[in-house]
């Protein structure tokens, strides 16, 4: 935290706000994953909160880094975003297929 001393008050407040927002999204997403009834709404909670939460945390951290580090942070966010959405789709397809199978069995 020693680099925080070099930041202006405004940037510190902004970055803290962003970090807190990110944490809030993460917590909301986690609670959603634990409490929502079926897999689709759980997926919705998790992926949305993850991409947004990570996004704001990355943005908040960018106040502290130099250009190269910020680029890397951005890359991390993009990668997580992409793989998160792909795996969300995969899981949703799987859940859908299972649901269909159950319905077929019933009819």
């Amino acid at each position, binding site marked *: 935290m020693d680099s925080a001393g070099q930041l202006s008050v405004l940037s510190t407040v902004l970055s803290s706000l962003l970090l807190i927002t990110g944490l809030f999204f993460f917590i909301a997403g986690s609670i959603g994953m634990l409490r929502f009834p079926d897999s689709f709404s759980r997926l919705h909670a998790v992926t949305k909160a993850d991409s947004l939460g990570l996004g704001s945390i990355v943005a908040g951290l960018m106040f502290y880094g130099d250009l190269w580090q910020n680029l890397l942070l951005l890359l991390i966010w993009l990668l997580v975003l992409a793989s998160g959405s792909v795996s969300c789709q*995969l899981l949703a397809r799987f859940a859908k297929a299972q649901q269909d199978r159950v319905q077929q069995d019933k009819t």
Partner: protein
Amino acid sequence: MRLLLFDAILCLLLLTLALASILSRQLAHAVILYIAFGLMMALAWARLAAPDLALAEAAIGAGLTGALCFSALAHQQPQLKPDVLNWPKRLWPAVFVLLMLGGVLAALLQLPPSASQLIAVTQAGIGNSGVSHPVTAVLLNFRSWDTLLELVVLLLALLGARQVAPEVKPATSWPLSLGWSRLLAPMVILLAGYLLWAGASQPGGAFQAGALLAAGAVVLRLNQQLSWLSWSNFWIRLLIVSGVLVFVLMALLAILLTPGNTDVVWLRWPPHLAAGIILLVELFATLAIALTLTLLVAGEPASTGAEHGCGEGA
């Protein structure tokens, strides 16, 4: 003080996750909790100034083991009712564990606070080892016999697993995940190459690079790519074996290259050639590790559903 608080929370989290993984009702939860545990463990190790171990633990302890567990889980019989253990069955093991834990803790608390003198010896030897990163020097020069045997163990695990598991059933793929995995592949290769190269002077090295490559290859395999990647292919077999083979051949070559009539010392690299030899050995070890791990994970029999779960874990 603030950092001590962080340490305390981390340790508490680790213990909680481990306990939850052991005590959870469902096996699937146990596996998920174990993966979370592995990731936290990587964090703890990074905190304890062991970044290369943190890398390895994240790739292996959490990723690879998790993926393997998931694919084993897919074959598990659905459990009709959770096993409920009665009190004596829980009590006696607990008493035994507490006794053993007490003994171990008593021993651990008496350990001296000073580190081993071997650090100084290592630092003295590192100039002649061919690499500047001490962990790589220990792995591939000072204690290379351990590393060689470790590669043999990995090869052996593949042999054993292949022997008991039948062939994989073909499964369907899906354009989006296929496209994404293809996009990922070059990045994975680039990163693995970097890790391997960086291993000579910074955290990184053959094993981490191999695990990363394997992760990329597994994702491709799950999308029905890389069909040539199988044990029956001679060249693949040669590459898998080459991890150990190149190591041994280099050691034999090093014996031949040793000048004069000094007595033969197994695995001694001549100082001026050490850097090259180690890089070569690491390169082939990386390829072998990557292929072995890929075949271990993706070569297992798995139905479609299991493979999706598996991809997630990795």
